[in-house]
């Protein structure tokens, strides 16, 4: 039922892109959704200066948190443990799944109900559970739809953004017993609610992500509109939260500015319906809430990105998705073409740290470097600069302790030789004069077929006279 392939190699990136661009219905879905989200966000930030001031604060909080990351993680762990949580550390995706499976096996769990968690997508949680014979069901409406269709999310905030209501109506009628075809959105949501309410009651474990983890109070903050997150963290006996190590902040007072930036940037809402602050499992005297709460802190390449001062900025991300909503490339190719858990500009700069450049380098090139992503980022991640840096990393000489795994993955013999030649010519005046003279005189020999350049452009031909020749004539 669920998608088992969590990453498609970048080799087919071009093919998927071509297919996406050639699908008019898909194009309309994404264009419509992007226009909608852009307009809603813009309405939330009517005053550009006020936005700049708030994001200066947001950036300061994220940078401060990262500067103290190891200390904050230790404080978080100590506070959470004092509050009755169980804290686990996972170096890799496999570690994270193994920790969750250990918990599940201990209580002989059969059903896991999931709130929205991109990290669980990142580690392939559903697949790992299913391989162990445990059902992992998504309960966020968009995620539920996508899972029912056997697909993966195409957007980090709006997972089913690529589907029309007609497609969803057909899907529900085909896959949910006793449901007739209806395009009425309220009715479709009511159907989902009915199905999932039974699932919340049947689940042994609720799994959720975390938006912010507060070190000083030992509090997990979850942001949502639907209430499924609250269900997952309250109804089942055990709640497992899974998150990246970068999500920690020092103080509770650091949450309000980030929360405000997150909801306004993501969906253009001043606030979400729920902010769920969890500071412990059910205590004696309380009548509901989970008996156990676990937090799995996932590294999965983050500490490597952390080691490089420039790359560390990728860890500032609060996962709002504004960069993809404003990306001209994402708007045209959609989320699935990227083939990674995190698509769009943020995906292009995060994925290499999670998966290595070998398979992800084309993503850094799938950008016009127009800068829109950097302008809307609520925590001021310099995304365009990082894209350029990753392009350079992908073509640099491979070294043992490179800041990104798979450095040099895009390096090719011929282009490297050409550029070395170019550097030599431009570094030596006499050679330069000779070569430019030869090229201008031999222009008739320019090839008509110049590879990718001539696929959609006229061939490049050197000018009949060099600039220096023209200047000489002019000064006579």
């Amino acid at each position, binding site marked *: 039922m669920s998608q088992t392939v969590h990453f498609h190699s970048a080799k087919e990136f071009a093919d998927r892109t071509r297919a996406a661009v050639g699908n008019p219905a898909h194009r309309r879905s994404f264009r419509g959704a992007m226009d909608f989200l852009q307009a809603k966000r813009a309405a939330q930030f009517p005053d550009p200066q006020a936005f700049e001031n708030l994001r200066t604060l947001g950036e300061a909080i994220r940078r401060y948190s990262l500067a103290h990351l190891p200390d904050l993680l230790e404080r978080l762990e100590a506070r959470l443990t004092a509050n009755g949580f169980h804290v686990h550390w996972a170096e890799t995706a496999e570690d994270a799944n193994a920790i969750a499976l250990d918990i599940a096996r201990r209580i002989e769990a059969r059903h896991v109900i999931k709130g929205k968690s991109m990290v669980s997508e990142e580690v392939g949680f559903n697949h790992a559970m299913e391989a162990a014979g445990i059902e992992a069901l998504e309960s966020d409406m968009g995620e539920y739809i996508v899972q029912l269709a056997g697909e993966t999310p195409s957007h980090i905030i709006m997972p089913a953004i690529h589907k029309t209501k007609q497609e969803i109506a057909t899907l529900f009628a085909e896959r949910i017993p006793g449901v007739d075809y209806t395009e009425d959105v309220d009715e479709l949501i009511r159907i989902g609610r009915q199905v999932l309410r039974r699932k919340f009651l049947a689940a042994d474990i609720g799994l959720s992500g975390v938006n912010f983890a507060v070190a000083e109070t030992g509090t997990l903050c979850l942001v949502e509109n639907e209430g499924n997150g609250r269900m997952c963290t309250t109804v089942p006996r055990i709640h497992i939260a899974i998150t990246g190590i970068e999500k920690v902040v020092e103080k509770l*007072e650091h949450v309000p500015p980030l929360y405000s930036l997150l909801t306004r940037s993501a969906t253009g809402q001043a606030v979400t319906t729920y902010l769920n602050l969890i500071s412990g499992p059910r205590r004696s005297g309380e009548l509901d809430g989970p008996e156990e709460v676990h937090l799995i802190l996932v590294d999965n390449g983050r*500490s490597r990105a952390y080691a490089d001062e420039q790359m560390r900025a990728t860890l500032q991300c609060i996962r709002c998705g504004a960069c993809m909503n404003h990306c001209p490339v994402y708007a045209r190719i959609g989320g699935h073409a990227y083939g990674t858990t995190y698509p769009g500009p943020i995906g292009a700069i995060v994925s290499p740290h999670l998966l290595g450049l070998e398979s992800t380098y084309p993503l850094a090139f799938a950008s016009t470097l127009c800068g829109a992503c950097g302008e809307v980022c609520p925590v001021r991640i310099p995304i365009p600069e990082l894209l350029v840096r990753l392009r350079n990393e992908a073509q640099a000489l491979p070294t043992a302790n490179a800041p990104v795994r798979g450095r040099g993955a895009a390096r090719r013999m011929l282009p490297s030789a050409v550029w070395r030649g170019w550097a030599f010519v431009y570094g030596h005046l006499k050679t330069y004069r000779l070569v430019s003279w030869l090229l201008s005189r031999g222009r008739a020999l320019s090839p008509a077929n110049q590879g990718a350049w001539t696929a959609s452009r006229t061939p490049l031909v050197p000018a009949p006279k060099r600039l220096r020749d023209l200047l000489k004539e002019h000064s006579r």
Partner: protein
Amino acid sequence: MSTTRERILGRLRSVPSADVAAPAVDAWYASQEDDDASARVGKLTAALEASHAEVHHCASRDWSSVVLRIAEEKSLRTLLVGAGTPHGEALRRQNDSGNATKSDLQIVDYAASFETWRERLFENIDAGLSVAHSAIAETGSLILWTGPSEPRLLSLVPPVHFVLLDVDRIHATLYAAMQTERWSAGLPTNVLLVSGPSKTADIQQTLAYGAHGPRELVVILRHADGGAS
């Protein structure tokens, strides 16, 4: 397992620590406009209504009759309250006092562990009644401190959610609420901000209410000196 922890922390610690100044959160909020109490009531009301919530103003002494009137208008049969709470008892007395038009409403206590009556809670409770700990004017958010008398699911599972709020409990911002109430000194196991009925726009960006939580949010704003209804 602890070795994984040491390895991760070790890698993070091997990086020379950057000197980054603590963020000036306080200064930023101090630079924002400050509203007086009545402006906060107005902002809260407007924001809640914009989020599809119903807001009713009443004098403090009248709240129970207002709740019962709305419950009748909505044809509710069962209303869940925290067991042994003053507001729950007051509402039950008012309901039992029975004027001429005796209502069919049954006041139900959330008196036992969720596990012992989960089916009934999920299937047969029409509404829940919470008392807000405080509220946030800027975003129209109600703050619920859960605990034995305010269970977590009371405000989530029933399709209609009533919230009582005293107008003197309205803060300007979430930050003001945290600071004034000194949240960092200690929090209950679950604090909730509720800013409207449950909703989703996951199908073609079309807004639908009652996704997983309440379809309707009814806020009763209690004015000490008797505000307009």
